[in-house]
């Protein structure tokens, strides 16, 4: 059998973003990394725009909050899938662990939200670290199957452990105290959106820093060529383990935020559908781009909200067609397509 990685088009062609930044290549590596991490005006505009729902769509704030959580979850998948090249079909496992950890913590210990986030992140990171030893050993189909299997295993475990998780009825009795002792989680979702957005922004800053660090660069190197990276002194498996643990922690935080803002946890948090949805969001926006998961989550969630209003059972039709179109026409997602367009336009 021909080894597959050698044939991949994406292995040979650099992403447009890398190619563009190399065009004006500064000689020093530190200079190169620094030039990547400078803030673009569009980025600032994007984050300012996230405040708009408070004024423009005050009735849609709970949806906005869910979008922020989905964006956070997609960001965590981006680290392992987009940057390190690990395809996971079971990423919801860490989302669910975070959600149940935060829910149970508020039920049995106390309801202060930030400590709940930390506990959830720590739990997800711990499980992520333990499973990362398995993940780092495998590639390709076996890896996809193992991530899928571990995710399903955990969902079944949570289903059978009804005494702890509430089983298919969902976890009841989650009580979250007001944020800073003042902002209550209310029905309108004002606090919920503010809280989710703040968490998303802080985590995003950390991920942005991580991706533009030498560590982030070596992750991209591993994605492009798994076997050559150890030759330049970056141990692929050790890097994969670190990236996987970090991604698990962030997914745990995303799960914790949804548990805290909705004050309930259902088995759906661990389901295969959630793993598939987040994959779709990321690929739709553009994997391997910081804003890919964010843009994908916005489009996906708004589209689902609108479609489901018309005919919920046919939502799958839309998402299926969307997936086929993205794979066939926009191999690097919407942001990849836009980058190509602007690159072509600026050359003229």
């Amino acid at each position: 059998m021909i080894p597959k990685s050698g044939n991949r088009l994406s292995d040979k062609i650099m992403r447009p973003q890398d190619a563009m930044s190399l065009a004006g290549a500064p000689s020093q590596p530190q200079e190169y990394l620094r030039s990547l991490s400078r803030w673009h005006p569009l980025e600032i505009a994007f984050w300012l725009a996230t405040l708009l729902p408070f004024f423009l769509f005050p009735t849609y704030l709970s949806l906005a909050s869910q979008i922020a959580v989905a964006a956070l979850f997609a960001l965590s998948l981006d680290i392992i899938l987009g940057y390190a090249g690990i395809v996971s079909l079971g990423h919801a496992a860490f989302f669910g662990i975070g959600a149940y950890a935060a829910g149970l913590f508020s039920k049995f210990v106390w309801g202060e939200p930030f400590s709940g986030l930390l506990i959830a992140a720590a739990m997800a990171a711990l499980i992520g670290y333990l499973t990362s030893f398995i993940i780092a050993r495998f590639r390709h189909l076996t890896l996809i199957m193992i991530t899928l299997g571990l995710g399903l295993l955990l969902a079944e475990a949570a289903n059978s452990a009804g005494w702890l998780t509430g089983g298919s009825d969902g976890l009841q009795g989650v009580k979250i105290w007001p944020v800073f002792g003042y902002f209550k989680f209310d029905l309108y979702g004002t606090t919920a959106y503010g809280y989710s957005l703040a968490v998303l922004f802080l985590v995003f800053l950390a991920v942005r820093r991580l991706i533009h660090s030498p560590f982030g660069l070596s992750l991209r190197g591993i994605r492009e060529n798994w076997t050559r990276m150890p030759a330049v002194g970056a141990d692929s498996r050790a890097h994969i383990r670190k990236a996987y643990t970090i991604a698990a922690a962030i997914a745990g935080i995303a799960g914790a935020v949804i548990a805290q803002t909705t004050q309930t946890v259902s088995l759906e948090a661990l389901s295969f559908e959630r793993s598939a949805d987040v994959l779709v969001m990321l690929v739709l926006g553009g994997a391997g781009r910081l804003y890919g998961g964010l843009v994908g989550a916005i489009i996906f969630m708004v589209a689902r909200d609108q479609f489901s209003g018309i005919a919920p059972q046919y939502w799958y039709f839309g998402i299926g067609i969307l997936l086929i179109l993205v794979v066939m026409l926009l191999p690097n997602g919407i942001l990849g397509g836009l980058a190509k367009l602007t690159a072509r336009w600026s050359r003229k």
Partner: protein
Amino acid sequence: MLPPVLGVLFDGIAYGMLLFLLSVGLSVTLGLMNFVNLAHCAFAMLGGYVTVSLMNELHWPFFASLPVAFLAAAAASVVFERTLYRRLYRASDLDQVLLTIGIAFVSVAVAAYFFGTTQQPVDMPSYMRGSFDVLGLNIAAYRLFLVGVGVVVTIVLIGTLEYTRFGAQVRAAVDNQRMASGLGINVEHTFAIAFALGSGLAGLGGALAIEIVGLDPNFAFTYLVYVLIIVSVGGLGSIGGSFAAACLIGISDIAGKYYVPELGAFLIYLVMVAVLMWRPAGLFGRR
């Protein structure tokens, strides 16, 4: 009272045969072209719905509808293979996964649109509904029939692969695609036929599965997991491996449901992860 071990074994093997029919096509597809086809069970579902429509709308007998289910799934798969799949043979695993998940999603919605989300009823012929006792063991006629079909299909498949010219071409292409095309074998053509055959078998499996597990639009995803488990445990491109893995998973699933129902599907997922960690290429895989 615990049911007798032999009864569990028999039901497990009958269920395993069903899973074997559903999964053997995917095993060949993956082994031959390394193409991750997550829409495989959508073709099985198509076979199931063809049988249901023929029986309920046109009042065809059950057995007459089976070949049509096979042909419909095979024909549909060729259309998809020629228009979409072939463009992605050289693409990454991720792209293949996404495209085929997309197709599976669409199939779920289309099935829900035409047939509704409820379980489809079928009327089995009366001689298929009964059961009889052999040495104190109660054997359902339909399950015995399933085992028969499974064994016949296995023999025919292995015979085709081992003793015909086409089979030799398929084996050569699985072993070394470049060398095979260098020897003048039209790999693409061989693959299209193998792909149609595999999807047709899935369609047949989908039609036969209605009586045992029912049929609703979620079939494309519910059984996908089982199929993937069997393929990865059995080893890619290995028919004997799929057969053994299907029996293993079928028996573990039925035994698990009889003896430790509270574990649910936990057992088979555990079997899969354990086997893959022990032998990443599957039980009978060669890589």
